[in-house]
């Protein structure tokens, strides 16, 4: 109670809180707004895509198979006559479900691990840190390949594999932030009040390390989209008949030698735009926090 009182009194009149500050900085950042617009577009497609696609993305039409882009089919049709435009629009759904969930898992697990290792240090920290380093040395694609061969392909497996592969990286970021915070007076004050370690970690320290966690989460979201798209392309990610972009490319790239470019180009551009959009958002947030 007293803590909130002092902060309100010390804050000069008309000054905004730290998050309002961040919000207004983001609203002025062209990088952030561009990225946000791209991501928002694909989120809307993922949520409501089937309401405004001209065709059913899963309906085949063998007679019109592999027809080039035209007035009826803006992006052409694939090898069994499905409308590529409709598939690209709805194709955002699975990747925008799996990648954010994997990132969320990585953030929650990584934050908990980072708080724990950074706050307690000592032997527990040493052991956990070494294990995490060993884990990070193996390329994600290889880990994912092994795990998915072993556990079978499903969205849940992909989420867990990517989430757990990224958790150590987030844990490392959080840990270094916590190491700096735990030396500050407010942590000593909490310890002198005999607050529990849990309370000190999650109620006192956590709110102060949110900015680095926020940045790291958006960075990881970019990589998660990268990883999900790659795994789907390899056949270890999202499974047919989903119109997912990586999966469509993997089904159709064998035919590009025959000149059927429209079956893969638009999916490739869709992935590219989503990944770049997320990275612009990340850059915008990073820039706003550094100012």
């Amino acid at each position, binding site marked *: 109670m007293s803590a909130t009182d002092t902060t309100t009194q010390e804050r000069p009149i008309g000054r905004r809180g730290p998050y309002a500050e961040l919000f207004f900085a983001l609203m002025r950042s062209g990088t952030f707004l561009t990225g946000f617009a791209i991501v928002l577009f694909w989120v809307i497609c993922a949520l409501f895509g089937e309401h405004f696609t001209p065709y059913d993305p899963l309906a085949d039409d063998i007679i019109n198979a592999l027809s080039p882009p035209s007035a009826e089919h803006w992006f052409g049709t694939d090898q069994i006559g499905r409308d590529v435009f409709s598939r690209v629009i709805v194709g955002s759904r699975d990747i925008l479900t799996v990648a954010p969930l994997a990132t969320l898992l990585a953030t929650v697990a990584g934050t908990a691990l980072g708080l724990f290792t950074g706050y307690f240090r000592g032997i527990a920290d040493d052991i956990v840190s070494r294990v995490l380093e060993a884990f990070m*040395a193996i390329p994600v694609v290889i880990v994912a390949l092994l795990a998915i061969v072993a556990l079978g392909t499903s969205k849940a497996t992909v989420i867990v594999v990517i989430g757990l592969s990224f958790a150590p990286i987030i844990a490392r970021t959080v840990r270094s932030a916590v190491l700096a915070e735990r030396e500050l007076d407010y942590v000593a004050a909490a310890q002198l009040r005999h607050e529990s370690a849990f309370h000190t970690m999650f109620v006192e320290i956590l709110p102060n390390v949110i900015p680095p966690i926020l940045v790291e989460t958006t960075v990881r979201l970019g990589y998660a989209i990268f990883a999900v798209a790659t795994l789907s392309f390899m056949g270890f990610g999202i499974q047919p008949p989903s119109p997912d972009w990586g999966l469509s490319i993997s089904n159709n790239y064998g035919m590009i030698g025959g000149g059927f470019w429209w079956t893969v180009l638009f999916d490739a551009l869709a992935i590219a735009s989503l990944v770049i959009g997320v990275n612009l958002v990340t850059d915008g947030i990073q820039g706003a926090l550094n100012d």
Partner: protein
Amino acid sequence: MVFLGGQVLPGNVGRAILGPFADQRAVDTLNHTLGVDRPLLTQYWSWISGFVQGDMGTSYVLRRPVAPEVIRALGNSLKLAAVAFALVVPIGILGGVVAALNLNRPLDRIISLGGLSVTVLPEFVTGIILILIFGVWLRWLPISAAWPRDAGFFTQLYYLILPSLPLFLVLFGYIARMARAGMIEALDSDYTRTAVLKGLPWRTVIWRHVLRNALLPTITVIATQTGYLIGGLVVIETLFRYQGIGSLIFTAARGKDFPMLESGILTIGIVYAVATLAADFLYSVLNPRIRLGGEQ
């Protein structure tokens, strides 16, 4: 660890190879021939002792010894990686240096933003776009990396350009960014100011004082990217149908060919360790402040 991941989790190998409709007796016989019905520790011992002696076991699917396959695939992958590195290291460093010398001018913006954008794209996406541009529309380069038999060095090189470009694009961003950051720091330092103030020509300052200090971190980054490169190779080799270690692992993973899968991954682990060690060594050669061996 690789052994455990590959061997323990996936269940019945004979069943996986013969399919769900095979006779149970056939499955048992195959399992016995392959030796996968023996206790785990026995299997592990015969595998690891064999690996050390250069015997990687017999492929479940091809029924041929694994070692020659892995070595051939590794050779092919090293060719591809060598082409990619030969392109990206000079151009990436040049890009970073040029960006730093034009700090905050349009050229710097173009290099930094362009490098960042291509770095974050998955390799198969840039790969597809490059195949479409150079292979399908312009018809300058072959769309597959499988060169004709008995192809000479330059023919092979010609077939490897397109597959190495996606790897080039991803690595370019990292290397250029590190070189740029190193340059900015070195340009801003006291020794550069001293060199300029004592009247050395700008060219000499850059070559002798700035570059030598600026490129140290870049070398470390190049070495750590070997780990990434391996992941990238899996995707690129699949996309271009190239018989390298990445596609070997991918095929083995799909066909549940465990001796092949484990040997492939362990080989990659060894390559990675050697690359990291080589980077440490190179770093100590270039930086007199760090000496291996602990002499004062």
